[in-house]
């Protein structure tokens, strides 16, 4: 039998329900794994070992008291949470020195929902500072490395969560996705990552980077686990006005449904000169497989694709410049000594924020400034509307859109840190979905000749996560990619 830390959620549920294993067995396996590989991977900022043992004992008691057919949900399942999601009483840093000591007195809605289902918090995972980045190299504390090749990055910004899942340091994880931050690291690490429709999942307790784009979502070892987690974390939250009062289906029920006749759109703008040949071939092989399962590929156009990155970097940085104003040294977190108020502000923020965060605050402040607002922020909002419309038009013709998740396989650590623009371009396939608010999932669809994972992305209509889960599951059932494990 493989180690218990390698289990998926549904496998663990089965074994726990049948009382073949105990919660402590799984948890010990997880911490054994962390002890043996974390030094290399560096996925976690905080490991929640002591607390989790108490929770595990409680969970086991509950399991003991229920019947073997009952749904045990997340009782005793060890899950890792990205460190920009607030956990009551547990350090939440956003990988930023400015919040190096911040312990929230409140629980985010998503972790509250996981808690209510009995999950065990394994630890808080590393990220690019305030979720700004595509490689986890912008963390203020440590760089996480890709379990498939420790010289390479795990992607970002949810690199810690993706690496922890890939390295079996947890059963599943939560990430957040503002421009690809769940999907791109999932793709780089060979796991499943789902960004829900904007408004599907409450943002209460998610430390804001760009409020109109941020969504929390699952990073898991297979599609079914993403469906299980999504069901639990979704739904309207009275503490988040932007969370939609829309019914939440049981996302696991749609998985086994037929994909025959499903129209899958292939946007021509996404397959362009200069994209990695291996990736291109892998994606087309995947599409062929889907075709053999009954899906009908249709070429479509998303004409405003080329403006997505520019639009994103104006809107996201504008919102960020405002969202990050609260870190001023007055109330919590880092406070530097200053000779007066202004000096304290400046020194605190100079010491507390890393280079990329500062760059984005400056970009956003500039875009919102009097005299530039019309040319930048307002124009970007207008383009955003056009990009949204691109998707609406496309979904009049097709049910699902399929694209690569990333234009390249995982790159080497340090390779792009000196060139922010190159780094920004790694998100060209994932940014548009945040601008449009539509759901998208990345799942493993092959490996490069260097044994590096490649991800395929399925994009759905607003609040139609079911379709993308269904096609992802159908593909997964016909392939083995998700079962491959990195040799650590």
């Amino acid at each position: 039998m493989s180690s218990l830390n390698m289990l998926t959620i549904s496998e663990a549920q089965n074994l726990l329900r049948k009382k073949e294993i105990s919660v402590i067995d799984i948890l010990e396996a997880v911490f054994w794994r962390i002890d043996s590989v974390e030094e290399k991977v560096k996925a976690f900022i905080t490991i929640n070992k002591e607390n989790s043992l108490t929770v595990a004992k409680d969970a086991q008691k509950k399991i003991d008291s229920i019947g073997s057919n009952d749904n045990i949900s997340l009782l005793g399942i060890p899950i890792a949470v990205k460190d920009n999601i607030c956990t009551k009483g547990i350090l939440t840093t956003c990988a930023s020195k400015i919040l190096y000591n911040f312990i929230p007195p409140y629980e985010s809605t998503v972790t509250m929902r996981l808690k209510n289902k009995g999950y065990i918090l394994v630890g808080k995972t590393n990220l690019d500072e305030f979720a700004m980045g595509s490689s986890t190299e912008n963390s203020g504390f440590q760089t996480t490395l890709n379990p498939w090749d420790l010289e390479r990055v795990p992607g970002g910004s949810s690199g810690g969560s993706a690496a922890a899942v890939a390295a079996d340091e947890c059963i599943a994880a939560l990430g957040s996705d503002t421009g690809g931050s769940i999907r791109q690291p999932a793709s780089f690490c060979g796991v499943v990552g789902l960004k829900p429709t904007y408004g599907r999942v409450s943002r209460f307790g998610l430390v804001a980077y760009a409020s109109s784009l941020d969504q929390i979502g699952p990073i898991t070892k297979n599609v079914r686990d993403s469906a299980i987690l999504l069901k639990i974390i979704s739904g309207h939250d009275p503490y988040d006005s932007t969370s939609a009062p829309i019914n939440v289906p049981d996302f696991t029920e749609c998985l086994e449904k037929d994909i025959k006749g499903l129209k899958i759109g292939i946007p021509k703008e996404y397959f362009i000169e200069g994209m990695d040949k291996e990736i291109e071939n892998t994606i087309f092989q995947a599409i062929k497989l889907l075709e053999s399962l009954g899906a009908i590929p249709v070429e479509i156009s998303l004409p405003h694709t080329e403006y997505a990155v520019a639009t994103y970097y104006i809107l996201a940085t504008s919102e960020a410049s405002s969202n990050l104003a609260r870190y001023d040294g007055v109330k919590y977190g880092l406070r530097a000594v200053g000779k007066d108020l202004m000096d304290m502000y400046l020194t605190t923020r100079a010491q507390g924020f890393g280079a990329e965060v500062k760059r984005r605050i400056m970009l956003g402040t500039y875009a919102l400034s009097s005299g530039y607002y019309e040319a930048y922020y307002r124009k970007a909002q207008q383009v955003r509307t056009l990009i949204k419309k691109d998707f609406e038009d496309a979904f009049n013709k097709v049910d699902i859109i399929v694209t690569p998740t990333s234009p390249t396989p995982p790159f080497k650590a340090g390779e792009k840190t000196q060139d922010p623009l190159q780094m920004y371009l790694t998100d060209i396939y994932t940014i548009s979905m945040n601008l449009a608010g539509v759901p998208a999932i990345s799942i493993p669809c092959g490996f490069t000749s260097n044994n590096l994972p490649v991800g395929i992305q399925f994009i759905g209509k607003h609040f139609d996560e079911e379709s993308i889960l269904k096609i992802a599951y159908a593909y997964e059932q016909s392939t083995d990619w998700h079962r491959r494990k990195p040799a650590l």
Partner: protein
Amino acid sequence: MKYEAVIGLEVHAQMLTDTKIFCGCSTKFGAEPNSQTCPVCIGMPGVLPVLNKKALEFAVKTGLATNCQISKLSRFARKNYFYPDLPKGYQISQYELPICEHGYIEIVSDGNTKKIGITRIHMEEDAGKNIHESSSGGGSFSFVDLNRAGVPLMEIVSEPDISTPSEAVEYMKKLRAILRYLNVCDGNMEQGSLRCDANVSIRLKGEKELGTKVEIKNINSFKFVEKALEYEIKRQIKVIEDGGRIIQETRLWDSNKGITESMRGKEEAHDYRYFPEPDLVPITINEEWLNKIKQSLPELPDTKRERFIKEHGISDTDAELLTSEMSLADWFEDAITSGGNPKLVANWVKGDLLRILNEENKTIEQCPVKPSQLADMLKLIENGTISGKIAKTVFEEIYKTGKNADVIVKEKGLVQITSTDEIEKAVDEVLLKNPGEVERYRSGDKKLLGFFVGQIMKITKGKANPQLVNEILNKKLS
């Protein structure tokens, strides 16, 4: 005068909601510093605002009462600036698409009705307070109290339709009356629940173009509205007359010195970098809800005043005074419903009642005299039981003891003397005692009539019916 002033007012009104605008914290005034706070109103990471529906309702009510259009689609915006009392580093306010626009209120200026336009009314959150204290060690510290952070405010912006300081005061008074009628703001300028900033410029009379405007802040009483504007207008005229130019700037009113002083120039003005608040969905107003709010509005000061004049036949000025506060108007009408003669009630309310309340520093809500008690007393005057003069004593007794007028009259033996015989006796006595005065009266010194009346009242301890006294006196003296 060669010049005329152009004045626009920006009024901040603290709303009387129980809880803050974006969280459930209490808005009560005067609690321990930072005791009425939560992660939302102190701007912790990851928390989100949720709009208090009551605040929206209050703003809409105010908009309806000031003849505004209520926006079907409205939204919040962030106003960005750094200050320790602003925990998020931005204030959630409204910028484009405020909740109310294009309204007006009417004031009386020089006896004429004048419309003052309302540009917009928008909702926003208040900031906290910085408290600067010197520590015993010699270094100085500043403290931040965030109890007030997140208390709902309305900003009510007028058109530059105001031409004189007294019009500005009238505007403020009318606005305050409306806010108090609606029970959306207590209108207390001294405590800061109603605050006023003014934009002032001057120009030559008849000139079309506006002069450079100066913003005046920190005007915290009705008296200072007038004084600060008077000062500022004079200052600007002097600058121009001396050949200078007005600089666009923000000035602070210093009530101790009675002057305005420069706070910051145009160059130092903040760039607030407003943009739509992404954490709150746009507000859409549904017709049904709006109609419900419309129906819930009380009768407003202007309508009430017109009705009082028409229905109760009282004067313009009396009606203006009696409708200045809804509770006063209600008291007045209750007295009429209890059978009081409207004109008499009006006279007594604006005279003896308001005088005594003023002396005792009480509001009409705290008045110990019930409206029906005044009405009953007035009936005693009308049916001749007591004289108007005696009534003043009776009224004070009602105020002091809470007893009804008829009881007081009985207990104190204050019933009016209406017997002709008794009064004739008193008249005879007085005329007999003062032969010289009688002589002078008869030879034309008619002013002495008052003297005789006074003497008669003295003998009868004021209880004689004045009309009878006059009649009999006239008869006897002619």
